[in-house]
């Protein structure tokens, strides 16, 4: 969870300082190859050292970004919206040609549950309390029923990684899990033995894909601007394409205003119960 590329520590924005990009475990955590490809693509585009910072929780990365310890971060729509007034979307990944993804509710492949209501009293794995697909979607679905996760499930755990949610469900540690649909599909192609142990029983509506954000105060900085152009042009550079291929993404696109309305709606539902 430390720096993926070891560089001399320096203050962000200074001439000799590297560009620091924060990563949440939104995709395949601990995948050294993905991180290296991404770093290489950025170094090539930015023509400056790049440091990729990983933290265990969304909260830690978000706070680092808010505190100015990072120049940009790949967050999730939910923490972005929580700090919408301080953060700005730099780019949104395109998955299957769209900046959209879904949340999956999964169970063990031998489980006979058909829907969320069948999972009452079981143990449920969330990814992160600040994850849209790994927490908010299921929590808001339960909120619609007037229930909090802890009231509905017998026990809930946080695995701080979508892949970990799949592992926990496949191993039988928990009965069900809330997972990023993009991650589950990517794993189904890369580690089918893992996803074969699970079954998707519910898919959410299409929601805004986790965005790459920067602090509003710094979004006009030349490094951030350069970074923004670089990631938006990933599909046009070989290093960028290589990184995108590993991430099973098609490219990056600017966000449009209503992209995160779905998540915003769910936040309201969940907040209403709280």
């Amino acid at each position, binding site marked *: 969870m430390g720096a993926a590329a070891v560089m001399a520590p320096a203050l962000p924005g200074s001439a000799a300082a590297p560009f620091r990009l924060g990563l949440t475990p939104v995709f395949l955590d601990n995948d050294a190859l993905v991180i290296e490809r991404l770093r290489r693509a950025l170094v090539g585009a930015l023509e400056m050292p790049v440091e990729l910072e990983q933290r265990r929780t969304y909260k830690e990365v978000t706070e680092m970004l808010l505190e100015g310890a990072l120049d940009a971060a790949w967050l999730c729509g939910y923490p972005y919206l929580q700090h919408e007034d301080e953060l700005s979307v730099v780019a949104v990944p395109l998955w299957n040609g769209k900046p959209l993804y879904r949340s999956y509710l999964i169970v063990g492949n031998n489980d006979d549950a058909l829907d969320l209501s069948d999972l009452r009293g079981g*143990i449920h*794995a969330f990814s992160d309390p600040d994850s849209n697909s790994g927490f908010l979607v299921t929590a808001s679905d339960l909120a619609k029923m007037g229930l909090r996760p802890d009231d509905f499930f*017998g*026990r809930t*755990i*946080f*695995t*701080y990684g979508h892949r*970990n949610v799949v592992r*926990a469900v496949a*191993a*039988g*540690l*928990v009965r069900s899990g809330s997972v990023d649909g993009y991650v589950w599909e990517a794993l189904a192609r890369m580690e089918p033995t893992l996803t074969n142990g699970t079954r998707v029983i519910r898919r959410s509506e299409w929601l805004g894909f986790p965005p790459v954000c920067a602090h509003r105060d710094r979004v006009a900085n030349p490094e951030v601007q350069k970074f923004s152009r670089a990631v938006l042009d990933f599909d046009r550079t070989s290093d960028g394409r290589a990184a995108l291929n590993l991430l099973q993404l098609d490219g990056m696109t600017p966000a449009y205003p209503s992209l995160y309305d779905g998540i915003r709606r769910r936040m309201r539902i969940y907040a209403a119960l709280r």
Partner: protein
Amino acid sequence: MGWWRNFSLSLRVSLMVAMLMIAVAVIASQLVLSALDRQQVARIRELARLHVEALSVALGPFVLRKDVWEVYDTLERAAGASEGRRTVFSAVADRNGRVLAATDPRRAPVDSPISRLANGAQLPGKLQVGNREHNVKLLAPLVYQGRKVGQILTELDISDLVSERREARRLLLLGNAIATGFLVFLGYLATRRMLTPVSRLVSRMRETEGAPRPIPRDEVPEGDGEMARLVNTYNEMVRAIASKADTERRLAERERFVSLGRLSSSLAHEINNPLGGLLNATDTIRKYADRPDVVRQSADLISRGLRHLRDVAKATLDTNRYERTDTPLSPEDFEDLKLLIGPETRLNAQRLTWAVEMDRQDQPALPAAPVRQIVLNLLLNATAAAGKEGRVGLWVATGPESLVIEVSDSGPGLSDSARVRLLESGPVPSNGGVGLRLVRELVTGLHGAITTERRQGMTVIRVTLPVAVRDAAAGESGEC
């Protein structure tokens, strides 16, 4: 154990040495194996202790926070990283014994009681490992920052250590068996070599028929060891036996002459008495030569007298001829004996009872010479024992399988020394003659038996001689 006694001494000693060596080898192997076992159990205990301690360090904070995922993730990574996949299964429970996570969550679901899985679990420090066990189950407290925050149940795969122990055991036993076998073989050879003089001695003694033979000087072991002394003692014993036999033989011979001497004096009377009558008859013939009736009468008298003398001479001759052993026993032999003993009894004014129940049809197949010697010696002994005007008797009967001879006298009974000579094979007492010992040796030679008893004031010596009845009639008809 009868079969064991049938083995020769050298074989028995060799086998015992071999068994002793095997026993020592077994005990030594057992000691080494138990030391090996202890060493390996200590190693497995140390392994278990380190395993539990490492897990405790890694899991402590997560268990304290009851972080199910982190406990599971740590257990999984620990199991995956463990040397040779030693961890088969691990489960961690909180302080209340409720499972937080396990490497196989289906076997140990979250929140289930860990006690359900703890059956057969041992404490790492007191771990015992069986020879056939492939896994060991441990249950240990999870101590973090000096306090118990939960429990760890773990199953370790120790099949490699167990098979290593089995292999070491196999090699040790094989090595010991080979070494023991070799030593047993050497021990067998050495023992056999050491006991060769004994074997030779036994063989000599076994070969001995009649008189034992000494072991030649070149076969006597060198030095002054037990074996040399044993062989020398044996040789001395053989010489002593030969000397004793020689003495007894000479004594028996003397006894024969003593008997003969006694007979001779009786026979002198037996011959002397008719001689007077015969001389008278010759004087009568000379005096009345012209009277044929007197001459004829005197000639008849002379003839009867001479016949009697001839019979006496023949009986004496037959009795003292040892070489006539092939002549079978017949009723005439007893008539001869009666003739021989008659003068002795008459001299002592004794009453002789004579009953020989033997006819020509069922004569026993026994040699005449030794039987005559036996009966004559017993009768002489009886006449001596009965004393003046005593009673002496002979009763002979032929049974289906034996000839029974009973010689009785009205004497006071057999003295102890006479009993020893007649009934026992021990040394002949110095006092008294050896006539009765001669009887015993002759009876033994004919595979017979001697018993004595007192019956109605009489001492009865009963000799039973086994016979094969000779069918005289069949023999005669065969000649026709």
